[in-house]
């Protein structure tokens, strides 16, 4: 499924994160997901593979600014920017 609108993008991202973080933990779109205890390389890999396959993008080394990945809002904006390129 290819998603091009930011609201849909954010919903999909949030669903993925919610599953990984746990359904019983609530977090906002502005909240730093890395402060929820997800800082490890396996989660990083899982997130990147999810973003690349779901949104048909390629995450390059120059994209690896943690800010791009820290919140649902930032992830949504990042995906839109990548798809616009």
């Amino acid at each position: 499924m290819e998603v091009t609108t930011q609201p849909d993008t954010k919903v999909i991202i949030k669903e993925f994160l919610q599953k990984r973080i746990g359904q019983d933990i609530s977090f906002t779109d502005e909240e730093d997901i890395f402060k929820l205890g997800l800082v490890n390389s396996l989660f990083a890999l899982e997130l990147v593979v999810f973003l690349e396959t779901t949104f048909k993008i390629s995450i390059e080394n120059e994209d690896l600014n943690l800010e791009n990945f820290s919140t649902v809002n930032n992830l949504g904006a990042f995906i839109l920017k990548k798809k616009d390129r």
Partner: protein
Amino acid sequence: MIGIQSIKTYTPGAPVAVLDLAEKETLNESELAYFTTCGVNTIYDSGEITSYDLAKGASEKLLQETGTEANSIDLIIYLQSRMPEHFISSEATRLQHDLKAHQALSFAISNLGCADSSMALKLAKDFLTANRKANHVLICYGNKVFSNYRFRNPVTIMGDGGVAALISKTADHQLTDIQIQTNGHYWDLFKLEYRDKSADQYKEICSDIRKYGFELAIESKNRFKEINDAILNRNALSKQDISHFLLQNISSRAYEYYQSAFDIQISPICAMNLAQYGHLGAGDVFLNYQTGMESGIFQKGEKILMMNNSPVAAWSTMLIEV
């Protein structure tokens, strides 16, 4: 053809269970969780034996067991300890003197962390290729922690040990191709502030755990994909042609990460050595290759892809034909 003639390891002292290390009591909950599950069961504590002595011990063992005359060594590449015994003096030329390798040229490699060993193998290969009369390059390294802290959070637990490798003009264990990349963006991600501290207080600090766990982890995946693909392509090979994938010994999580990222199986040799010796810095890839050579796991003609990286940051891949 240039290849690895022999590798020897020198780990004096008795193994120590990591759960018995006093520093365990200083760790917080998340550090302790990683410490106890990173895949290291024991390390060797060499006591008063220095990094230089470990490198020398491994070199002497190698020369003795292979019947190699010290005078036949053309080049000594000494991998500088991250904590050298002295400032200013030269451990590389000291080793040349102590081994009586009077015909050799000696120098040291440093600053690429674990990937020092890959640079040494590349230089050894290039040196032997360029010098028709040269036959033997000795590479050696001693990994020694002389502080009270062996745990590099959130990476690994360091052990003590020396390794030495003899690179020669041989058809065995051919160094077919080596590629190395570096990126200075991470130059001080890990560091040890040593001024105004006694050696037993030295502790490596990760300046940004998020940068390590996210940015460097993903860049490492991207870098390894690029250099692995480049090496396989230019040698007309595919992933399926590789019989064994080796990595340095960092953690169970690191093996899991690269297995998942590249859909490969990292040789169980690595996890076995990690459990027994802990992380030996630039010595890991030599130790792992030695285990494969001497155990009979590696069979003649098989191709090995050996990945070796460092958070400084450097990435390297070596293609070896048994």
